[in-house]
């Protein structure tokens, strides 16, 4: 197995084992979305209108939950030192860790979204559109989050700092993700317009995230 494939398998294994972040993210997502109808009350029209926003906000927060351990865990047990001295370029290593995080945190959210869309009174086409926006947008959340995770790596309780750094950067993704979902449900803007911008944001973060996070890690470890 190559270095990067080995790293992907290891990170996914750790995520799904005891103490890993995979299940926590999905459960958090489910709980937030399930609680919303209880808090708002049985106003079906209102739920339908704000449904996409709730799902997106819950997805964003669920993504952040496991992110703070992404590099900090490897730093605390000394693995990061060895990973840094490996032969694989650090940018690729960071990207692979991000991909493993998305597969174990982001992808389960995308899979769950159609099921819990029912709780928010979304009809079938709306659920499809919403799921598609989450599929296109959650990688951006993870890869923007990589930057915060790398900056907070040395801190014992970096989770809070991570949220403060990462959340403002995710605002464009949130705006266009929810806009695309709303466009599919109620119009009047065609679905394609905000959705292509969302895809562009994701592609940009896939490139910028690993480079910025790798640069931050090199500085921090020094």
């Amino acid at each position: 197995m190559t270095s990067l494939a080995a790293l992907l398998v290891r990170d996914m294994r750790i995520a799904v084992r005891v103490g890993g972040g995979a299940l926590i993210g999905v459960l958090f997502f489910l709980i937030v979305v399930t609680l919303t109808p209880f808090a708002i009350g049985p106003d079906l029209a209102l739920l339908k209108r704000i449904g996409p926003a709730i799902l997106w906000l819950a997805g964003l927060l669920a993504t952040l939950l496991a992110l703070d351990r992404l590099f900090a865990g490897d730093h605390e047990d000394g693995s990061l030192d060895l990973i840094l001295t490996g032969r694989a370029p650090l940018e690729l290593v960071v990207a692979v860790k991000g991909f493993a995080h998305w597969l174990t945190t982001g992808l389960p959210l995308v899979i769950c979204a159609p099921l819990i869309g029912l709780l928010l009174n979304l009809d079938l086409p709306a659920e499809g559109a919403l799921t598609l926006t989450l599929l296109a947008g959650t990688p951006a959340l993870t890869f923007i989050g990589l930057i915060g995770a790398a900056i907070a790596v040395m801190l014992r309780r970096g989770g809070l700092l991570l949220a403060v750094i990462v959340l403002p950067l995710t605002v464009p993704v949130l705006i266009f993700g929810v806009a695309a979902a709303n466009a599919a449900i109620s119009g009047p803007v065609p679905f394609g317009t905000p959705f292509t911008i969302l895809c562009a944001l994701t592609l940009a973060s896939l490139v910028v995230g690993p480079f910025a996070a790798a640069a931050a890690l090199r500085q921090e470890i020094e």
Partner: protein
Amino acid sequence: MRLSAVDLACRRGGRDVFSGLNFALASGEALTVTGRNGAGKSSLLRLITGLVRPAGGRLALEGGDPELTIAEQAHYLGHQDALKISLSVVENLRFWADYLGAKSIDIAGPLEEVGLAPLVGLPAAYLSAGQRRRLSIARLIAVPRPIWLLDEPANSLDATAARRLTDLMRTHLSGGGLILTASHGPIGLDSARELRLGDSQ
């Protein structure tokens, strides 16, 4: 193969740790770095792995693979064991062997060498400190690399395991390897030279 340092200086957190350090180490030689706490023993090893940038001077490796950096031809055994507690003994070792680019896929052999063969399926969370150390040492055998940088390698090892480590170091040296150890106590290698840090201060 020859690893040499000329006028090497290290600065961390605004403090000069050491400067003007010279040493040379050839194939089959071991060097024990000694000195009081904070003299820069660990910093020197981390500097060779490239984790810390030198403030001055230079490090050179003659006769190594020119395509690879010094760190890529070295094993670094730090204070921490670099193990994931939720992975089993064999999963931990297999990951490092794959990640560090082992040619062979022999994992059982190295585990046998460090005496962890009966525990292969056990999650690393249940290992004692000495067993964790031995699992970390198995990495050095699973992936052949010429330079060994060992920071207090015998920490938490019992007498038998420490002797076993000395044997492994001897085998490595006779195979043309280089060893740099940071240590407070003797490491059991008669041939090892000593590099004392921090005397000038």
